[in-house]
């Protein structure tokens, strides 16, 4: 029990504390960017604060360990790669820290560092930094991004030249090196803080508090659950200086809240809105809706041990031509497109046209397939919408369209975490999934081929479709860019005509912004923060 004099003392003490507070430091309304260690960072940017709302998939501040979207968004602003993409153009990598030349066999890629570029601590970037960064990724087997360096050897030629070598022709290497996981780190700084080129590496904590790159921004704060704060790199000497004094990327999981924040002026950019949400926005907000890089598809297992008598191409064909793709597209909103094959529209070899519903053809194929009217179960993850497309709603529409074509379907939704197992193990007979590229290159879609990673998940072996398997091999080993495009087009065409997969949609990515220029979608880093600037 507190006696009256004590209560009075307590009240006095609290008042005094606040009064003292009012006369001291800390946050100041006129000095919002009062970070602890940004030094003179921020001087000269002059763009104020940019607030970006997105649902976090953020696990680390270490580029070499990152393979999730939000991580790529923030790391791409702090670190640079040897090559990059220009805005939303993912057709051809362009020079960033280096220029590149490939040999005719597409097995040697020579990178030459451009200019006298420096890291954020002022130290120069040289070939040792490149070798260390790439060997670190290759050596850290516990890194989720480790597979990107599979089969790639790194060799230093001189202080400004590095060669990446592969045993097989690999024209995807230029696209791979644009991935933020292959960012070039300040090797001296990282090594001094526990960095190594194998799994003993202990630099992750350091890189979670201090950036060691050469990008226009440096790390000010990183909280994996709430926000990442970036401030300008005072020693940046590249071509895209920071436009903002401070960028705050916040974890806002609810799209409805993202939209409210944007409308209320609490943020300037929302990255996870659905088609329905952006459709109702007025002219006061800018909307950017473009097809994303992820396709939603049906998988029809060709393994008789899994699908029984329905493990045949004819049943897959019956499903393929039974669907009304335009009606499915209605669920995805503006900017989404029908999947014209397994390769999304922004990539080399993508087809112009998708499949058109043909109920007669479907009926003929169904009769040939041996289907006896049994109910087949459609499995899908129901807790992970892609581009705002809800899988349950899409599944219901697929179910009704197939039923109209005489195919009885029951829906079997489940959480992603439990549904991914039968999908990966190849034990699911009929399922609906999505696929995004591992890196921004058409070779990321070759796994759908027979005998390949995703093909085998559908019980589709190379022996079952040798012609298509040959097209996969041709696309993999093409050494000439023109031949390569033709090979991918042939592969996509063959995949559209037959096989275990029925691509449905490429949902759009919808960004809404207020007073921001330069907003564009790129599958590598979602949105390039270094391209953003206050609207003119």
């Amino acid at each position, binding site marked *: 029990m507190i006696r009256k004099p004590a209560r009075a003392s307590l009240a006095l003490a609290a008042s005094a504390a606040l009064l003292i507070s009012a006369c001291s*430091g800390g*946050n100041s309304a006129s000095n919002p960017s*009062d970070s602890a260690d940004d030094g003179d960072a921020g001087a000269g940017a002059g763009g104020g604060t940019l607030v970006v709302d997105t649902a976090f998939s953020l696990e*680390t501040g270490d580029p070499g360990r990152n393979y999730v979207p939000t991580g790529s968004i923030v790391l791409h602003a702090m670190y640079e790669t040897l090559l990059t993409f220009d805005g939303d153009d993912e057709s051809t990598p362009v020079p960033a820290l280096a220029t590149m030349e490939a040999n005719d066999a597409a097995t040697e890629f020579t990178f030459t560092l451009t200019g006298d570029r420096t890291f954020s601590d002022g130290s120069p970037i040289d070939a040792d930094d490149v070798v260390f960064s790439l060997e670190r990724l290759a050596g850290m087997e516990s890194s989720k991004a480790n*597979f990107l360096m599979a089969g790639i050897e790194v060799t230093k030629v001189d202080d400004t030249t590095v060669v990446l070598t592969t045993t097989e022709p690999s024209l995807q290497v230029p696209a791979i090196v644009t991935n933020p996981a292959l960012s070039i780190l300040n090797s001296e700084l990282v090594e001094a803080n526990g960095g190594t080129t194998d799994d003993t590496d202990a630099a992750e904590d350091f890189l979670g508090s201090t950036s060691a790159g050469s990008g226009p921004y440096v790390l000010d704060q990183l909280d994996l*659950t709430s*926000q990442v704060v970036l401030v300008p790199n005072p020693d940046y000497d590249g071509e895209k200086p920071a436009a903002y004094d401070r960028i705050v990327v916040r974890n806002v999981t609810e799209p409805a*809240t993202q939209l*409210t924040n944007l409308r209320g002026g609490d943020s300037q950019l929302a990255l996870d809105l659905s088609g329905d949400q952006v459709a109702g926005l007025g002219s006061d907000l800018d909307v950017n809706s473009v097809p994303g890089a992820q396709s939603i598809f049906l998988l029809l297992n060709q393994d008789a041990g899994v699908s029984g008598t329905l493990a045949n191409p004819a049943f897959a064909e019956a499903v393929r031509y039974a669907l009304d793709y335009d009606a499915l597209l209605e669920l995805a909103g503006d900017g989404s497109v029908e999947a014209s094959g397994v390769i999304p529209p922004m990539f080399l070899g993508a087809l112009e046209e998708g499949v058109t519903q043909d109920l007669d053809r479907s009926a003929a194929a169904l009769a040939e397939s041996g289907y006896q009217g049994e109910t087949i179960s459609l499995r899908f993850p129901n807790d*992970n919408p892609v581009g705002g497309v809800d899988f349950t709603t899409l599944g219901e529409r697929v179910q009704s369209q197939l039923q109209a074509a005489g195919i009885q379907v029951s829906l079997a939704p489940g959480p992603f975490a439990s549904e991914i197992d039968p999908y990966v193990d190849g034990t699911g007979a009929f399922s609906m999934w999505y696929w995004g590229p591992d890196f921004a290159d058409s070779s990321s879609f070759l796994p759908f081929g027979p005998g390949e990673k995703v093909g085998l998940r559908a019980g589709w072996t190379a022996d079952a479709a040798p012609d298509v398997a040959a097209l996969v091999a041709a696309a993999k080993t093409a050494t000439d860019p023109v031949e390569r495009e033709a090979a991918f087009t042939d592969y996509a065409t063959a995949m559209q005509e037959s096989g275990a997969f029925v691509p449905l949609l490429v949902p759009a990515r919808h960004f809404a912004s207020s007073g921001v220029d330069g907003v564009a979608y790129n599958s590598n880093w979602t949105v390039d923060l270094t391209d953003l600037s206050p609207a003119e």
Partner: protein
Amino acid sequence: MTRVDTAAAARTERSALLRYVARRLITSIVLMLGVTLVVFTLTTLVPGDPLTAALGEGASQNPATVAAYTERFGLDRPLPERYLLYLSALFQGDLGTSIRTTRPVAEELSRALPATAEIALCAIVLSVAVAVVLGTLAAYRRDRATDQVVRVVSLVGLSVPTFWMAILVYQLFFLRLGWAPGSGRLSPALNPPPRITGLFTIDFVLDGDPVGFFDAAAHLVLPVLVLSLFTIGVLTRFVRTSVLEVLSSDYVRAARAKGLSEPRVITSYLLRGASLPILTMTGIAFGGLLSGTVLVEAIFAWPGLGTYAYQAAINLDLPAVMGVGLAVGLVYLLINLVVDLLYGILDPRVRLG
């Protein structure tokens, strides 16, 4: 009674209280061990491969990465061995490492729990204060207009979905009226305070930062309001019932017969008599607030325990899920323990029984 008898009686009462406290502490420890077993068993029985969920498609096809993760998290060991390892680490304060972020779960919880505790504490204080006033008022004005109004208010608080209320409140007070700040714990222009308690308002005061304090306090208002509405609904009905019971008791009638003023009767007799059931319900409500804020945290982008639990669950991050389960279990046990101890202090019959 002699002075010796009085001292002996006091000693007896003290030792009874100590025995009671010791009993409750031992029971809590045993219960906590039970919680660890249940949480561990349940999380390992969840269908799905945590590695596939955590690594994603690309990395889960890389044998080297899968092997490294399997070894690091001991996923190839028999379940009993994993449980014993988990338990031995737990006794050293180690809740394991998150598969998703590879950071210590204890460290991540130490960030998430204070964020939720801050809104839960404010919500429970506000809820108890409002519910005691409304419940007492309703009991005093039983079956009159005031009682009916309070019952309607309580019913609304109970029946309106919290998620919908959060959206509504946020739209109204932030977007339409501009009276409240945006989402999160702090405005984007401000930096968080140095971490001392993890409660921003307290830490800003300790740091001597009034701008930060008022900003953090302003960000608390809407989530606290939404969380309080439901809790007020529950507690008001409970207070009303408890007060009605006490109102008809002999000692209240005796107090009035002695000529005590009504405010004195309320504070010294009525509320004290009704305090035990109210205390029980407050404890349960507080536990619910700490562990059931997922939806409100999602709407207000509040990086608390609910958000952390949801992320852990959808990513099948077993160590993190177990950490959350233990944290929630511990919170409930502590609340029960505190409530039981307060019972023992407030009502001698409890400890002597």
